[in-house]
């Protein structure tokens, strides 16, 4: 389509025909105030806050629904535009309860932001405010406050357009207008918590995060959701060294602006009570705490003794760097018995891939699979097991294999939690960390290598898995242990063409495509 040239605030910009003025302004870095407009949703044009002045037009126009024309001259900061926005703000706030001290949205609320920027410092309204239902449970996950709602319909449109469900609607008329669960429907969408994120005010809040912490106290870290192989980009919020919430971070190549509720809520394992905080070795049938040096030595001795007979189960929840370091160890031992444990996950058209291993693709590229003559996980139950290495994995869901492992002479477990596997069968336990506690990268289902960043620090003496595997490898004569995840990735990049040229720094915020063709 032909480009159109227009002027916004005295600066010229060229955009394709059909672009709206608000998008053209964003291209210039000008953010016109908006509530109802969202780049991922259809235009509704109902909040009226994005008013701008256009030369030659008698009234101010909403920039979200105004298509650019050749030679258009737009003023977003003229006196007329500013006054119009001030007036809209006054109208929106007439019945607003002003309960910011209680409201979870405070700190990331557009009403607060625009009030601060150009709102008035008082109200001229002299009558009792219209009251509406507060703290209504829309569902187990979403709490609704009708008084705070400005009826922008972002939530209604998200469920309709993105999640494909007409579960919310607007009911009643005039100043009694409010959002409600549609008649005959229930709010059950597995993506419903996105409406909490896109709600520009405090009308929709997360029941899970409700009153946990004010958002301005959160240490916010961009990382990757570990719940499925999509690898949705997330911003993790932590306080008191506790992971409190995940919200999606925009990445057009992966998850756009969204993420699923299951992934968002799957953070309980990080602060779980059964986290491992010290290396353990089994003495006289019981696991006792020991030092890292001793545990690593015991682990190395056990692995060396098992040699090519070792059965290895390597988790595809480990990072690329860790898979590489684990493979290095298995190659040194010369064992063909290596496999990944499949992990089921919901599957749908939007984001969920059906594969609960966040680094399934990394494991595939790195060839973590039975070699010629190797025993895969499916064949573990076949005959007796001599020695096994459960690298970042547990077999709690496979009791028959635990029975077999209980008879093995040596079982090394690297994991972050004291699982039933650890308790029952482990000979040596090396405490690893969760994906929210370490540096590294995952390769998502489309082959995009994305960076993990530590959000909280791990309990006790637990160490990042890349460090444990590096040091274990060094003891087994695989070469020096990497001093950082970045160093491990550089070593991986040098060894594996699919990752050629990558380093953690080069991944940037949005990740990079792995050269998967090279791996095939």
């Amino acid at each position, binding site marked *: 389509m032909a480009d159109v040239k227009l002027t916004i605030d005295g600066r010229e910009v060229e955009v394709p025909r059909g672009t709206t003025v608000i998008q053209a302004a964003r291209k210039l870095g000008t953010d016109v105030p908006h509530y109802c407009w969202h780049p991922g949703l259809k235009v509704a044009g109902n909040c009226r806050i994005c008013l701008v002045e256009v030369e030659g037009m008698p009234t101010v126009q909403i920039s979200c629904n105004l298509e650019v024309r050749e030679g258009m001259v737009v003023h977003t900061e003229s006196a007329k535009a500013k006054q119009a926005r001030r007036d809209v703000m006054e109208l929106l706030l007439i019945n607003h309860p002003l309960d910011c001290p209680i409201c979870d949205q405070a700190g990331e609320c557009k009403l607060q932001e625009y009030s601060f920027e150009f709102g008035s410092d008082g109200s001229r309204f002299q009558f009792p405010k219209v009251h509406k*239902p*507060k703290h209504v449970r829309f569902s187990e996950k979403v709490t609704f406050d009708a008084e705070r709602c400005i009826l922008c319909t972002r939530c209604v449109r998200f469920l309709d357009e993105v999640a494909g469900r007409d579960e919310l609607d607007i009911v009643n008329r005039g100043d009694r207008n409010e959002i409600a669960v549609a008649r005959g429907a229930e709010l059950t969408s597995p993506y419903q918590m996105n409406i909490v994120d896109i709600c520009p005010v405090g009308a929709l809040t997360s029941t899970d995060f409700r*009153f*946990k912490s004010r958002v301005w106290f959160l240490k916010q870290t961009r990382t990757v959701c570990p719940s499925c192989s999509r690898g949705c980009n997330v911003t993790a919020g932590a306080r008191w060294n506790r992971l409190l919430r995940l919200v999606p971070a925009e990445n057009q190549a992966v998850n756009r602006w969204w993420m699923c509720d299951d992934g968002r809520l799957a953070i309980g394992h990080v602060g779980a009570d059964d986290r491992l905080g010290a290396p353990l070795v089994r003495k006289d049938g019981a696991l006792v705490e020991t030092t890292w040096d001793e545990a690593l030595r015991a682990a190395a001795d056990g692995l060396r003794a098992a040699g090519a007979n070792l059965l290895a189960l390597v988790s595809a929840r480990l990072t690329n760097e860790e898979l590489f370091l684990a493979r290095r160890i298995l190659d040194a031992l010369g064992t063909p018995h290596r496999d990944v444990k499949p992990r089921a996950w919901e599957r749908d058209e939007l984001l969920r891939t059906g594969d609960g291993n966040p680094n399934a693709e990394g494991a595939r590229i790195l060839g973590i699979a039975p070699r010629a003559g190797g025993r895969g996980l499916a064949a573990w139950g076949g005959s007796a097991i001599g020695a096994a290495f459960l690298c970042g994995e547990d077999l709690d869901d496979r009791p028959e294999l635990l029975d077999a492992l209980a008879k093995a002479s040596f079982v090394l477990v690297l994991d972050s939690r004291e699982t039933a596997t650890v308790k029952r069968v482990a000979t040596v336990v090396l405490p690893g960390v969760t994906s929210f506690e370490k540096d590294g990268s995952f390769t998502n289902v489309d082959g995009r290598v994305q960076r993990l960043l530590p959000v909280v620090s791990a309990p006790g003496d637990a160490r990042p898995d890349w460090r444990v595997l590096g040091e274990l490898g060094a003891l087994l004569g695989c070469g020096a242990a990497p001093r950082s995840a970045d160093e491990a990735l550089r070593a991986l990049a040098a060894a594996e063409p699919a990752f050629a040229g990558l380093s953690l720094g080069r991944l940037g915020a949005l990740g990079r495509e792995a050269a998967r063709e090279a791996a095939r």
Partner: protein
Amino acid sequence: MAYVTVRRRELTFAERLYLPSILKGMAHTLKHFVGAGGRAGVTMQYPEEKWQLPSFYRGVPSLVKDADGRGKCVACSLCEYVCPPRAISIVPKSIEGVVEKAPEVFDIDMLRCIFCGYCEEVCPEEAIFMSKEYEICGETREELVFHKERLYEIGATLGADAGVPDAERKWAKLAREQGEQGVTGG
């Protein structure tokens, strides 16, 4: 650099004698002793007597209750945020009723507090006030972390004494209006 020579004043004979000054001082002391009727009138008999503190005195920060006896704090955490020495720590909780939120934990570490009064200034609910309480002592560090109950105890005293204004009575007003409009929370 210019300088000035200061000449030391020559002392008179009486001054050099030293005793007259001593006697002068004794006379002054005697005058006050007699003037106070033989009592030590200058010394305040603390702790039997207490200071008359000015209205702007900033003592221990305290939490107050409204006229309905409900704690006013809604755990917005602004005081926690503004507190320069980070003396305040709050954990909010959800409660039933017109107000949705209240502090589960509200601690002020009095070993950290610098009595700056920012917490009182920032509070949007007028729930925290600098009291006139200044007797802060304890035998352990833990004892000097004032918990919610203690802070409300100190605040209630302040509320009675200073008549903390609650003219707006905003929650009562909200409940009334909600009732009139037939709206209930949740």
